[in-house]
């Protein structure tokens, strides 16, 4: 069910009915969410619940008392601790600011006020992290409804517009250096619909609701996207049609030199701007693919057009043929090794959009219409590519996928697979968790679904706790080869219990499948387990809709099945007395700390 199809009035009116039908979906994942609010939060919670349900979560809410957000997080966090939220959203607004400067104040006093305001929020984040152990989402602040000083309100240290902007910058710096803190840019949300549409003074005076229903909807959509991102459920691939999507005209009919692109006409400028937007998405880590009903050779000439911003090398997967698009989309997902639910499909043709939406409901198909001037803003509005953080690896991802294609090509030249692996000249760094990788490790636990034996999700705080706890052995693996650095691709967490080491988490990024990285990881954990006196290793496989590829993982590694439990969970054990290192093709760096 697509929530975008509902008018806001219908969403409010029919909420309970929509909630019921969304709740019937299979495989919803549980999530616990606390909302601490400085104004009435019910409308936001209602809308957020629908959006989380629609994106595959079954949320349980704790809604704090009206305007008790500080008390409930700092002074008396017992109720929150008992609730054990995964995320706490501190829902505050301009009316909750306590240190707005006096109109005659100077720069020094402004700085002091910003620091005082910030420290109140810092106390909340600290308490939430230490006492509750959850991820915190803090919003930036909207501009005040009135600029008391007119244009000077943004200039003078006593201007409240100036104060809000200084505070927002300070919040951004905090979030940039604190991985447990996610910042929601409410300032931007309010700007997108405009303050005149954001504030609703009757609702404030009547019900202490700070924003219009449109404002609540903006917050709900953005929060839902942010939570999806933190859980690794953001989309990864932008699949583009060509004719009248990336350029104007029909290349097969008009010829490659007649397509509409460049700076000559308003229409050509709009297509060029959209290509620039796609290229910018690629440069921030979104993978680009092409799916078009066309002749492949002709289309390639389109990308060689001197005004084409996108070049063939920007496209990681290329499906140009006359097959149905939903078939091609499946192929694209397979080729790029991502789930079908990672795709966003952009096509100006409503018939193609409709058939893809019907055949592949997991693919996001925004209603982009046929006006190229609007494609980018409609894509943006869907918030498909939201990220909790941008790691260096995200920024390099497009290149990585391009290199993987090279590897596949090269692989075909070797008859013997071992010879191919040797030719890759792989080097692995495998070591216990280090502070510098904690964020990436938590990110991987939240986004890896296929090669993941237990699919347990961890927050940054939990990974840090494991790194400190001598009962646990947590190791990560990085893998590089002659084509480049794949980055941190595997995580393994073991818990020592007597002579046993229980493997609580074992995951690996699919881009290093079949590289014997799992053997290298096993060798490394066995060595550490033995050093701590373990004599047996016990692994668990918890099947999900996505991790079928590792169903026989433990049997391949010579573990014996010792137990079969509920929901086809299995337990596997392996004696360590006769364990011999298995990895033969990856050179591992010596850096054992424990």
């Amino acid at each position, binding site marked *: 069910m697509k929530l975008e199809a509902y*008018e*806001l*009035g*219908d969403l*409010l*009116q*029919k*909420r*309970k*009915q929509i909630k019921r039908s969304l709740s019937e979906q299979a495989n919803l994942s549980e999530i616990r969410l606390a909302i601490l609010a400085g104004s*009435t939060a*019910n*409308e936001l919670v*209602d809308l957020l619940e629908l959006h989380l349900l629609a994106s595959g979560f079954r949320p349980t809410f704790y809604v704090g008392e009206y305007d008790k957000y500080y008390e409930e997080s700092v002074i008396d966090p017992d109720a929150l601790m008992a609730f054990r939220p995964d995320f706490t959203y501190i829902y505050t607004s301009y009316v909750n600011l306590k240190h707005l400067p006096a109109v005659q104040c100077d720069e020094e006093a402004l700085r002091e006020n910003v620091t005082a305001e910030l420290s109140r929020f810092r106390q909340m984040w600290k308490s939430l992290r230490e006492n509750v152990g959850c991820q915190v989402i803090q919003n930036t602040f909207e501009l005040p409804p009135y600029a008391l000083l007119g244009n000077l309100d943004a200039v003078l240290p006593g201007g409240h517009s100036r104060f809000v902007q200084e505070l927002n910058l300070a919040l951004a710096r905090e979030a940039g250096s604190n991985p447990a803190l996610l910042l929601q840019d409410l300032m931007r949300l309010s700007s997108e619909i405009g303050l005149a549409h954001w504030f609703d003074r*009757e*609702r404030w*005076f*009547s*019900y202490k*609701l700070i924003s219009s*229903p449109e404002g609540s909807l903006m917050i709900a959509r953005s929060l839902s996207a942010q939570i999806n991102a933190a859980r690794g459920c953001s989309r990864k691939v932008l699949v583009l049609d060509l004719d009248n999507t990336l350029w104007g005209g029909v290349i097969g009919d008009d010829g490659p030199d007649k397509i509409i692109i460049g700076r000559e006409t308003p229409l050509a400028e709009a297509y060029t701007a959209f290509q620039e937007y796609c290229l910018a998405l690629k440069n921030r880590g979104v993978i680009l693919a092409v799916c078009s009903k066309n002749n492949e050779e002709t289309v390639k000439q389109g990308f060689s057009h001197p005004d084409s911003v996108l070049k063939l090398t920007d496209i990681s997967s290329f499906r140009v043929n006359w097959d149905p698009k939903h078939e091609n989309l499946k192929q694209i997902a397979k080729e790029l090794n991502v789930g079908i639910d990672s795709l966003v499909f952009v096509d100006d043709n409503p018939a193609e959009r409709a058939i893809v939406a019907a055949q592949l409901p997991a693919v996001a198909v925004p209603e982009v219409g046929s006006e190229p001037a609007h494609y980018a803003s409609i894509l943006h509005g869907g918030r498909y590519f939201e990220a909790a953080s941008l790691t260096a690896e995200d920024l390099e991802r497009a290149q990585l996928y391009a290199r993987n294609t090279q590897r596949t090509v090269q692989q075909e030249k070797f008859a013997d697979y071992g010879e191919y692996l040797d030719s890759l000249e792989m080097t692995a760094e495998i070591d216990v968790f280090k502070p510098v990788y904690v964020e990436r490790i938590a990110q991987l636990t939240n986004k890896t679904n296929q090669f993941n034996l237990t699919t347990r999700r961890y927050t940054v705080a939990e990974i840090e706790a494991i790194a400190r706890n001598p009962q646990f052995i947590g190791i990560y693996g990085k893998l590089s080869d002659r084509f480049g650095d794949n980055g941190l691709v595997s995580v393994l967490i073991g818990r020592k219990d007597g002579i046993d080491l229980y493997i609580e988490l074992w995951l690996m990024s699919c881009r290093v499948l079949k590289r014997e990285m799992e053997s290298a990881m096993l060798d490394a954990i066995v060595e550490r387990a033995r050093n701590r006196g373990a004599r047996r290793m016990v692994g668990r496989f918890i099947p999900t809709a996505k991790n079928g590829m590792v169903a026989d993982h433990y049997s391949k590694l010579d573990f014996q099945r010792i137990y079969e439990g509920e929901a086809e969970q299995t337990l596997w054990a392996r004696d360590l007395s006769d364990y011999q290192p298995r990895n033969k093709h990856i050179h591992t760096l010596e850096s054992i700390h424990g």
Partner: protein
Amino acid sequence: MDSLLGELQQVFRDVLDKKDLVIKPESSALNVEDWDSLNHVVLISAIEKKYHVKFGLAQLQDLKNVGDLLVLLESKLAAKV
């Protein structure tokens, strides 16, 4: 039944999640089950969005029952034409 009252009845049925609810001009928060302050906000917001109208503070304060709401909504709609 008056058509506007019929439409409002559907809004009440959806918001209060009671598919057989019958409302009359004299229905009010006092005699309709679940018409509490939280649902009142949803009812008013849904009606404002549905009919593209906006009620004033004093008007909201004076609403005593469905009949008042009906009169207010009719006057807002009449003013739009």
